[in-house]
């Protein structure tokens, strides 16, 4: 039987801002931008949440709900730095740490009793160490599965610890709303409500064959989840097990649909850079580049090209995606969304080029240097000249590039 900790930082972005400006403490704070700007709330303090403000809400709506809130611009580089510090603390408790996003992590604590004591004592030590070494509060959920650990850390918030004793998982989950199950979003929730299923217990009481008929494979996963088992998607993998992604992509939806070639191509340059950064972060080289293009009327096309050698160089990606764009865009038609996707990964660059005169190697070194600048000063610190016009402000993101514990492997 496993002992899994789910550690979730409390109001992470807001708490980090409070460290830099202690006067924010206890006040309604909204991180993400100014009250009159376009954009969405990245995080809200507990005081602001009382007014109904929550993340992903438009900033202007948040202002209407809570006019007295203090609006703060996001500082992605600060969050990355504190995420790294938190990661270091976690690593001192278990070698198996997996950052699930910038402010939450799973720890496999199985077999650490003789070192850290029973689960609650270990969690208490972790909780104190986190506060002492980062100045931040966190909540810890403890259970035999990742899924129940995650749900219990949510119930423990803020600044609490909750241990679900082995065998009590289904009883713990039963009274909770189905929405609390990780993986159940708006759509599944609606579907379940239509069947009269509101609590996790309602779901657990059903025959899994029925759920399978109704929802297919996802139904089986739901049945498992409702019993407190790790089922479906990455919940099936072990903590700390690194699965290489099958594809890496970035998309951008324009604030106003556009048919301006310069804007479109520089957006593609910017997206290629973002994808290239992810590729380097994962230590992967791609062979296939795909363009996604959505017109104003929502017709969407994807076009892919496979190269004869694998690359992780931004300009190589951009060159390919631009050829696809020029060959497939119906010139003059306004575009709503552009996306760049890469797949068919290799772990080594492999074959060196005979004709480019070391050009590829020079780019590689330059981009590695650029990545280090971005780690330090934020994603917009350096960019391709071609992508300058297509620049959009880095959103404060739960899954940014440069997540601790996901550094490129140096083989």
């Amino acid at each position: 039987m496993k002992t899994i900790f789910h550690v979730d930082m409390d109001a992470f972005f807001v708490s980090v801002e409070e460290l830099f400006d202690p006067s924010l403490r206890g006040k309604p704070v909204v991180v993400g931008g100014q009250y009159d700007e376009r954009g969405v709330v990245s995080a809200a303090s507990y005081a602001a949440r009382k007014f109904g403000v929550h993340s992903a809400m438009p900033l202007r709506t948040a202002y209407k709900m809570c006019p007295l809130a203090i609006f703060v611009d996001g500082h992605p580089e600060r969050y990355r730095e504190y995420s790294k510090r938190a990661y270091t603390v976690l690593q001192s408790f278990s070698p198996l740490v997996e950052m699930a996003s910038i402010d939450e992590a799973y720890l496999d604590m199985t077999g650490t009793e003789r070192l850290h004591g029973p689960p609650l004592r270990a969690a208490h030590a972790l909780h104190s160490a986190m506060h002492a070494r980062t100045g931040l509060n966190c909540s810890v959920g403890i259970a035999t599965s990742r899924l129940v650990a995650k749900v219990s850390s949510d119930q423990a918030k803020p600044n609490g610890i909750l241990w679900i004793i082995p065998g009590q998982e289904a009883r713990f989950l039963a009274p909770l709303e189905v929405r609390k199950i990780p993986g159940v979003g708006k759509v599944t929730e609606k579907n379940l409500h239509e069947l009269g299923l509101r609590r996790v217990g309602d779901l657990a009481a059903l025959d899994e064959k029925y759920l399978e008929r109704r929802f297919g494979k996802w139904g089986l996963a739901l049945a498992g989840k409702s019993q407190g088992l790790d089922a479906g998607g990455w919940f099936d993998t072990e903590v700390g097990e690194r699965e290489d992604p099958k594809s890496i992509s970035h998309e951008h939806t324009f604030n106003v649909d556009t048919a301006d070639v310069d804007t479109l191509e520089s957006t593609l340059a910017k997206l290629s850079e973002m994808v290239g950064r992810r590729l380097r972060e994962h230590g992967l080289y791609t062979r296939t580049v795909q363009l996604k293009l959505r017109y104003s009327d929502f017709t969407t096309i994807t076009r892919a090209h496979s190269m004869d050698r694998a690359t992780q160089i931004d300009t190589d990606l951009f060159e390919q995606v631009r050829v696809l764009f020029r060959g497939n865009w119906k010139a003059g038609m306004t575009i709503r969304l552009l996306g760049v996707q890469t797949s068919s990964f290799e772990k080594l660059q492999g074959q060196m080029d005979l004709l480019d005169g070391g050009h590829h190697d020079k780019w590689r070194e330059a981009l590695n240097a650029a990545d280090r600048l971005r780690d330090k000063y934020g994603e917009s610190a350096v960019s391709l000249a071609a992508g300058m016009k297509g620049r959009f402000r880095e959103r404060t993101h739960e899954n940014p590039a440069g997540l601790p514990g996901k550094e490129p492997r140096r083989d």
Partner: protein
Amino acid sequence: MEFTVGKLDLVRELSLTQGVVEKKSTIPILANILLEAHGDRLTLTATDLELGIRCSCPARVKKEGAGTVPARRLLDYVRLLPEADITIKFLENHWANLTCGRSRTKMAGMSRESFPELPVMPEAVAQIPYKQLSSMISRTVFAISMEESRFTLNGALLVLQDGAITMVSTDGHRLAYIQNVLADGDAHSFRALVPRKAMGEIVKLADEGTADDKVSLAGDDNHLFFKFGERLLITRKLTGNFPDYERVLPKENTHIATLAKLEIRSAIERVAQFADERSKAIRVQFSPGEVRVFSSSVETGESEENVPSEYKGPELEIGFNAQYLLDFLRAISQDQVAFALKDEKSAGELQPASTESINGHYRYVVMPMRI
């Protein structure tokens, strides 16, 4: 039009044209072969608009004229006929009437008017022995790029200059270079990119000749012409600039390993079975007196072999694509090879090495892999 032709003659010429006939054409006429009877000969023409071929054979012409029929079906049918004379007569509706012994067939055809005109061959710039041209092609054709977007690399560079004929091909990872003396005093200077598909057809046509036969080479602004006796191959030139290959021919590869070709070739063939399937990466370790080849892959296992070599340079371990090395080792006839190196990050060079004198100059440059 009406003529009589020997079955063997017709089958031979039809076979030579098949490689040029468009197989998945959206233009129906390109799947047809143009038959023209004139004087005492039958001329056969096929084209896919990139490549064109014109062959001919003796025929007894009763009535001159021209017509077209599907090339593939004509060959498939004629092959099945007994070895006898075949009489072909075109009817008013462009159908062809074939009679041979007791066989009588009517084939649906199309009017010759819709068949594209092929360009006329200008004056020849050089005469090249069949065998010479064909062997130069088979030593370079495998290094041509398969990546369609790199269109200037989808063929080989052909250069005639100062009494020498040179052919170069590259896919950006390796480069094959061959130069021979051209024993044609009247040859002009000439430079063109020959598409890969044309190179394959040239080899086929050259196989039909003897050691003394010579190809007449000519070019206009857009086309290249290769005349093999009565047979003419026409190809569009590739446009664009071929890379500056002289810049990448190694000049400082001073560490040389000489190896018995068959030994190193079979060693690589075996070891490559355990290389990563996609990258085909193997490691080659050069040490004094010995070259070691090895591979390992998580999925399949690992394998290694040692081949004795007169090597006096420093210890070097370099990754290579096994396929690239094998392409060269399978293309040469000599029994020894020389592997010239600089370091792990620079291009290696392979050359045939032999105690007997080597005709011409053949160099093969391969970039290493990072492993």
